[in-house]
């Protein structure tokens, strides 16, 4: 407390800001989530377990988690590349490309889903080219991953970009002057600084992917056991008036993603600390 008071603050007193934060979080996040848990508690323990462990439900968790993971991974690699290009190079139309990155945030996800499906469906522009090669995109897990990559693009780019921008080039220059290879410079000097923002971006894209609904329902094909994502299953249960079951599946999904995000957080803290010791020493 005393420590906090010493700092200059723009907002008035701690109790007021803290009170506001707690109220705000309660209304927007905590109370709805608690309601979710309470709703699912209407089921008896055995009913609860049967609901969340049914083969269709388990298949949908697996699909949602795997596709979200792969999509976040692809975004990790290509998001870094995009951020790199945007920070380090000058080219005509750079502002436009930079603006495009944010488009997935602004676009209603359903629009993205319909557009992607139209293009990647077996009769679509790209889909019809891939079909003869035996590659099916729409109505397969590949299509779902594609939609999740689309909506996840901004996360990695926007977390990495500012760090890359602030990075001072003297270390890099020194490395090059001392005769370091380009690859070595990248992996030893640049990458370590980027690992924390990359992990953050990855975690955000991953979390977004698990819960994404709008863009996926159009391209997934929604086939039970094959391309049915967990959020769709929740909607399905809601539309059958099975509120408690829907809440149960949602709670499990919430717990899984919370656990995964927690893991990523630990990883991030670890990489942060390692980085500081390396730099300090």
């Amino acid at each position: 407390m005393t420590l906090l008071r010493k700092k200059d603050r723009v907002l008035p007193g701690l109790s007021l800001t803290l009170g506001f934060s707690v109220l705000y979080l309660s209304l927007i996040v905590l109370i709805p989530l608690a309601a979710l848990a309470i709703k699912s508690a209407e089921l008896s323990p055995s009913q609860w377990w049967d609901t969340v462990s049914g083969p269709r439900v388990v298949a949908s968790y697996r699909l949602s988690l795997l596709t979200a993971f792969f999509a976040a991974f692809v975004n990790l690699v290509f998001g870094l590349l995009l951020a790199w290009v945007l920070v380090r190079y000058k080219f005509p139309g750079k502002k436009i490309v930079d603006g495009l990155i944010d488009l997935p945030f602004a676009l209603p996800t359903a629009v993205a889903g319909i557009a992607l499906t139209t293009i990647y469906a077996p009769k679509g522009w790209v889909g019809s080219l891939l079909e003869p090669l035996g590659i099916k995109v729409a109505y397969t897990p590949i299509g779902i991953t594609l939609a999740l990559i689309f909506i996840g693009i901004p996360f990695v780019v926007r977390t990495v970009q500012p760090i890359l921008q602030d990075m001072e080039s003297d270390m890099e220059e020194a490395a090059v002057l001392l005769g370091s290879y380009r690859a070595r410079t990248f992996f030893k000097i640049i990458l370590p600084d980027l690992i924390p923002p990359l992990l953050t971006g990855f975690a955000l894209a991953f979390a977004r992917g698990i819960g994404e609904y709008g863009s996926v329902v159009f391209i997934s094909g929604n086939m039970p056991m094959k391309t049915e994502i967990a959020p769709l299953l929740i909607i399905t249960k809601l539309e059958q008036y099975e509120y408690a079951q829907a809440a149960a599946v949602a709670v499990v999904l919430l717990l899984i993603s919370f656990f995964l995000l927690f893991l990523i957080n630990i990883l991030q803290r670890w990489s942060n600390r390692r980085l500081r010791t390396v730099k300090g020493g």
Partner: protein
Amino acid sequence: MKTFKNLKLVLIAVLIITVLSACGSNKNNESSATASGSESSPSAAASGSGETPKDIELLNVSYDPTRELYEEFNKSFAEYWKQKTGGKITIKQSHGGSGKQARAVIDGLQADVVTLALGYDIDAIAETGALKTDWQQSFEQNSTPYTSTIVFLVRKGNPKGIKDWGDLIKDGIQVITPNPKTSGGARWNYLAAWGYATKTLGYDETQTLDFLKKLFKNVPVLDTGARGSTTTFVEKGIGDVLLAWENEAYLALKEFGDDYEIVTPSISILAEPPVAIVDKNVDKKGTRAAAEEYLKYLYTEQGQEIAAKNFYRPRLQSVADKYKDQFGQLNLLTIDQDFGGWKEAQNKHFSDGGTFDQIYTPGS
């Protein structure tokens, strides 16, 4: 600098909350339910005198494929209402998947009347006490002013030679239907296929299930609603046959006539999309008389004519005779006689662990 940025963020957040809390929950519901005013005439404001009480607004919450039907019907009813009472009536329409629409009404969408794809969805609203449980007795003919059925829409020339349900389980046929768990229309599709397998092939239960299993093996996409499936088939060009509401199939034919044709199977199901007044809402708004008149108008000659023109099968014999050639002849099963009513059909086929789940669960 950074704290200054944070302050800005907080201010924006506060602003958003204020704006959000300013619009009440009612408003939120209505705007989320794609309500579109069909009669775009400006409401009460125009007549400043004592005539304002006559201006009435009704909200008809319906399902996807009735959009065109009610656009025409509402216009006709507004004229009729004006002649009869001299007052102005504005009818707002809301369309979406039938189950989703029922949910919206349960959650507080102020519908005066509901015109949904199946009785089960209105039953769900009735369970909350918003209307009486025997609502289906309120109007003639099971409260179903028009009926429809399930037919096949195939590509021009019927290249795969699809004639009847039996052809749908053959190898290399792609069937497009929505998901029965989310779409009312898809439930009619499913039951029609089930009925065909049971009746004509004399299948027993396990073989019927096997028939459905084979059929759904041929389904590459399960859209969440009937309109979505039509889009998949018509605009994305996927699949060889679309299982569709008859009116939806004719509508597709009307718009893209040269590319498709309708195949009427030997057996199908009498799809009864019922209508009901939401008692709780009309009593609160004082619109009961208008709502009743609105639904009764569906049964009149004009109402039936509009239904028939929009490819719904009319109930009124005189109109039915007039449009006899428009609809294919086929054997129609009914939900009450052949499936023991909606409750039983729902439990057996579409609830968790029902026959639809069994189709997709390995080892069953």
